């Protein structure tokens, strides 16, 4: 950036300059919207500081400790994250969070930064954001003033309130990620209609943050024989009777986040906790969430790859057996390859994120939503308003606003872009980490230990949020053949049961 430019406005920090180099698209955008982009940079700088002070010093120790003691969860580091408002990243500005014009872009940059040090700790925040998303995409504004408000206010006091998102079932992993598959899937969990709500029975597995989350957004079938037509999103409170988390897994990597099994035994969920409409769980509860959450997975993968790359470079600059590895041509070229792959990843996921933000950002900053939050909170959070917003008229109103800004075609395109970024980036991350590990060889430096952790961490990014195979199919169906359309919910949709 030229000297003349720097005279108008604050000068970027070293970290900020680096972000602009890594994301030239954002640097170009900053010429037109300095304030918006500088807010993203501020979040990234906070993440860097959080890594330096809190996550970095304990990452290896936490990773190793969980191998011996699977139930261990480090709350201290999550509490430390509260002072940087890491739990508020996905929450709309109106409710007191950080999401405004660039909600997804902010999330991807923050996640790349967090995961470049420890993806286990980073993914606690990532999975939390994922849990928040269904509240946003389904326009469940009634819960913005309860759940999201609680997250923000408790965060200010230093008490982390975490969310989780539960879709995977023991018998259905890939099947719950794609409409065509869900239609023929064997679903175990069922929500039965009862007076005033639903009764949930069944299991969910591998749920990130499952044990730690106070609120869980969850999808379940109302009729197991017609899962696609009756797929519905619910909001679960940890204190609901009959809900338990019997088991956490020991994962190969990303261990600081627990993958938990959730057990539902006759859990009653009131009608007010149905998000969106019964039956719109696939489009609204999953595909729209995936459109916003698959590019963050690409960012997690790239963060992990960057961690491996940085430790690899540091290793290459130390003297081993009388010479520095970086003096060898092949090491320089390997570093160049890694750099190129990370640049590919970044351009893919930042484009996907900006595309999504072109719609989501407009919703969060629209005068209608903003003016809603100018009314005093006691009124918004009052019982009549809550009842109105959770009634079908309230939902129809919010959906009307949503549909005004986003069309089905837009949403489908966002999903395609995000799926592409996800599989391409996680495959690249696996290439980068395994190559770094191989080149470092039989070495006893601390750097190798970090790269080993990155290698173990990276593999999961090829699996969660839909396996990479599924994401390829999704790109084909939603973009290349255009057979798949994400339907933004229609108000007053016919009852499904």
């Amino acid at each position, binding site marked *: 950036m030229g000297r003349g430019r720097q005279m108008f406005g604050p000068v970027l920090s070293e970290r900020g300059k680096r972000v602009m180099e890594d994301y030239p698209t954002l640097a170009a955008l900053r010429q037109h919207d300095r304030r918006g982009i500088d807010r993203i940079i501020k979040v990234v700088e906070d993440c860097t500081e959080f890594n330096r002070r809190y996550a970095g010093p304990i990452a290896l120790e936490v990773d190793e400790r969980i191998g011996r003691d699977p139930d261990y969860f480090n709350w201290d580091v999550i509490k430390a994250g509260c002072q940087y408002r890491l739990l508020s990243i996905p929450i709309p500005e109106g409710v007191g969070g950080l999401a405004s014009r660039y909600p997804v872009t902010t999330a991807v940059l923050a996640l790349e930064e967090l995961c470049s040090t420890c993806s286990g700790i980073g993914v606690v925040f990532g999975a939390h954001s994922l849990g928040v998303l269904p509240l946003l995409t389904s326009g469940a504004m009634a819960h913005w003033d309860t759940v999201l408000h609680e997250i923000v206010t408790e965060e200010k006091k230093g008490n982390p309130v975490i969310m989780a998102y539960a879709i995977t079932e023991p018998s259905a*992993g890939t099947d719950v990620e794609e409409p065509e598959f869900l239609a023929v*899937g064997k679903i175990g969990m069922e929500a039965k209609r009862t007076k005033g709500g639903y009764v949930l029975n069944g299991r969910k597995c591998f749920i990130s943050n499952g044990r730690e989350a106070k609120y869980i957004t969850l999808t379940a079938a109302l009729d197991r024989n017609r899962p696609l037509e009756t797929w519905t999103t619910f909001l679960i409170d940890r204190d609901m009777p009959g809900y338990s988390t019997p088991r956490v897994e020991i994962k190969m990597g990303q261990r600081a986040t627990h993958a938990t099994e959730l057990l539902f035994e006759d859990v009653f969920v009131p009608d007010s906790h149905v998000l969106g409409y019964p039956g719109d769980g696939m489009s609204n509860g999953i595909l729209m969430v995936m459109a916003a959450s698959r590019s963050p997975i690409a960012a997690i993968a790239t963060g992990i790859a960057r961690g491996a790359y940085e430790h690899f470079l540091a290793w290459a600059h130390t003297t081993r057996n009388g010479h520095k590895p970086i003096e060898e041509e092949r090491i320089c070229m390997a570093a160049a390859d890694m750099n190129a792959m990370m640049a590919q990843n970044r351009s893919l996921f930042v484009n996907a994120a900006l595309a999504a933000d072109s719609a989501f950002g407009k919703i969060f900053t629209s005068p209608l939503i903003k003016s809603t939050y100018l009314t005093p909170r006691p009124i918004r959070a009052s019982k009549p308003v809550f009842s109105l917003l959770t009634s079908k008229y309230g939902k129809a109103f919010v959906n009307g606003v949503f549909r005004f800004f986003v069309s089905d075609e837009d949403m489908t395109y966002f999903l395609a872009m995000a799926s592409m970024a996800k599989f391409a980036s996680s495959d690249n991350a696996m290439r980068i980490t395994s190559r770094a*590990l*191989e080149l470092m060889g039989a070495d006893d*430096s601390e750097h190798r230990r970090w790269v080993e952790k990155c290698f173990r961490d990276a593999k999961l990014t090829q*699996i969660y949020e839909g396996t990479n195979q599924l994401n390829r199919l999704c790109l084909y169906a939603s973009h290349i053949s255009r057979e798949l359309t994400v339907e933004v919910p229609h108000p007053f949709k016919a009852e499904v049961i």
Partner: protein
Amino acid sequence: MARIVDIKETEERRILRDTAADYAAKVLAPEAEQLDKTWELPVLDSMNKAADLGVLQALVSEEAGGGGFDTYAFCVALEEMAVGSAGAAAALLIHNAAMVPAIHADGELQPLLDAKFPLSLACSGTLSISGGNVSGHVPWAFNAQAASLFILLISEGEGMVAAMVEAGAEGLAIKPHPYQMGLRAARVASLELNGAAPTAVVRGGESMLSECERFLHLGFAAISVGISRNGFAAAHAYARERYQGGDMIINHQALRIMMADMVSGIEMSRAMIASACEQGDLASAIACRIEATDRALRSATDAVQVHGGIGYMEDYGIERLMRDAAYCQIYPRTNEEYRLELLDLVEQQ
């Protein structure tokens, strides 16, 4: 899976393969998880049962009290054992590789035969010998945390020295690696030597090191085949019983292609091991090692992918294959360094 035919199979070798496979399935496989998980020193009692197979002194001639294996027979046994536990197979490989210098140079074998399992071997690092004492740093020695005796390969002028240093020797500091990702049954440590006095010394030419490395190449290739076979068998069985996308996942083409690649990798690696053992030269052993270990990492990574979330969880034993395979690529040096060496060797021929 269909049994892969060994084109050079003799009656004797078939019996060996079956016995080793039996031992791997009955003794090693049930312990594989424990060998990987335990954070204390792995208990290798089970390896003592392997003594009956003759694999603990495999390369020592039968007259001298060993197993009298040729390299290929040993690779066959090692491959079968790696199907049970790649870590235990690696411990066994290092143990036998530590005897190679003495066998090759016709040196005194008795101290090696008397030492308890496992032996540890150091053939990288910055070792030097002066006045009969060894000094230097070894970044990576397999088996080091359990070993009673260390065999250190050191250049001395034109030739090589294999120095045997006891675990408790003065001047030898064993620094366990704080976290070992793969092949955990062969616990790694770095060694710091400060004028440690060897109990015995074997002298030989440069070929002592290359012979030892050749043996390690073939051994790690064989272990890699074991890992690939394990990955394929698990992935194939799982794919046949996992229903997803309206069908058993074995019927999805992407997974079929992945698994076909595993099979071709196993076939190729096995053929290369047989051919390299026949040729007996370093270049073919290196070529074999590079391909077999790279393919094993790919197979293991794909096996995790076929399993999805389950593959990533420790309790199911699939992710262990990936960690083990990553450790086969790098010892004693990296595959890429061996690629450079391979071309040097080809040019010399």
